[in-house]
């Protein structure tokens, strides 16, 4: 059992020095463990990158809310980062060369390999979205693509805000299950370690 390690608001809005000290005293002690954990998911040459990515994501989360169970969060975030990497690698390998040529619409931004992997990863999620029930999909599109608020979606679809929430909950569940089912989450949450 680990000690909850919440930061006060003061700590979260603290200057650089305090951030450094938080990182040194509370995060870095777990690094060895994090590396060993990640080694079960990714080849050795990826571990450094994954640790960096984990820290970046952790800091992002820290900016949004207090973090309570640092060790578990580090491992969970590291695991997600490793899964994202896996998902991209896997989908890149099944990408036909012809598809790269069709990518000229993206005339700026990341390089082609990065685009291809993102694109393939998105295809999986797209499939998930396509399989959603109509109302659920409508809510998702209005929220994510049109950028409407829950209230605005409720008004437009003539449903309650609670129903909007329920549909979003369902969308997250379906998409998770879809990624799970298609092996895009190795050692998935439901099945335990790979």
């Amino acid at each position, binding site marked *: 059992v680990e000690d909850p390690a919440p930061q006060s608001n003061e700590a979260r809005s603290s200057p650089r020095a305090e951030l450094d000290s938080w990182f040194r005293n509370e995060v870095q002690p777990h690094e060895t463990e994090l590396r*060993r954990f990640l080694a079960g998911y990714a080849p050795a040459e990826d571990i450094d990158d994954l640790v960096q990515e984990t820290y970046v994501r952790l800091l992002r989360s820290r900016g949004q809310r207090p973090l309570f169970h640092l060790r578990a969060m580090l491992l969970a975030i590291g695991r997600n980062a490793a899964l994202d990497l896996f998902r991209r690698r896997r989908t890149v390998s099944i990408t036909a060369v012809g598809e790269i040529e069709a990518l000229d*619409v993206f005339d700026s931004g990341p390089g082609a390999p990065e685009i291809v992997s993102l694109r393939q990863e998105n295809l999986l999620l797209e499939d998930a979205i396509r399989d959603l029930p109509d109302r659920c999909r409508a809510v998702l599109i209005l929220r994510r693509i049109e950028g409407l608020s829950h209230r605005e979606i409720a008004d437009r679809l003539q449903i309650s805000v609670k129903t909007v929430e329920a549909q979003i909950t369902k969308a997250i569940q379906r998409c*998770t299950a879809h990624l799970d089912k298609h092996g895009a989450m190795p050692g998935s949450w439901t099945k335990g370690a790979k």
Partner: protein
Amino acid sequence: VTPTNSNGGVGLELPGEAVRAAARQWAARHDGGLTDAEQAEFHRWLQESSLHEVAWEEASGIWQSLDRLTVHHAIVRLGKPKPVFRWWWPAVGTAAAALIFGWMVLNRGGDGERAGALPPVPRPEVKALPQANPAGVDAPAKASARPPQPRPASAANFSMVEARGSIQRLSDGSTVYLKPGAQFVERFTPQFRSVDLVVGEAMFDVVGGADERLFVISAGDLKRNVAVTIATRSALLSVDIQSDVVETRVVTGQATIGPSQMAQAATRLGLESKGTITEAGLIARVQYPSNIDSEAHVMPLGAAEYAEILAWKRTLETTLHQKVSDAR
């Protein structure tokens, strides 16, 4: 009993389905915005167990990854959209028209003071968006007693001598010139400068430059996915919803025009040529209500039409210059 993920001898206890379901619910609630009390409750829940926090990480991560879909492929590949929206616009539209009409009636008195300085033509009005219209809201009873304003059947019976309409400045610096009876709604998002032309005819002077967002005009009944979509970065064009066709006249610049939400998505993404590229000096007609197979028929814009559009714009600008300044 919760599964444990053990890698390299390091164990991460994984949440069970009940906790994951709770985390998904929190993700949805969080997305809608939490009150301070709910936020506190949320943090208590996270603090309760590392399993909660781990489950939250998963659920919010999935929700965020859906964000990446926004501009890339989302709607294009979703298949033909089914009519999930309902038919409540006519009622709202009529009410809005009545409110605006009421507001215009009330405002007429105030206009009298400046009327002498202007040509003796019926005065166009600069109106705010219907929902931001306090005078109209104050006078619902009066407004509801009036019939909605008629709109001209086509450009042909539009006469400059009887010029009436309004000018609306948008937050990106673009300008909308509305003919009488035309109604539109600005609903810009971080990604798109979206506007809905619900009824009537309007001219859009879309400015490009600093604002790189695509300007997307949806003309017609969005709720039934029968809208015609006009997408552009910079153009001067007029859009007219008629009974059986939506006409888009492109005066300057270029626009992509096509039917329904599918084309809307495609043109926005630039992935498929579902829309027809239309350039300056062309007029595009799309059958209305549109369906997935509707195509834009493009033909040259007649010199007379071209001149008429520009003259109308100039008249509105001249007549309304004073009022636009006032409104800003």
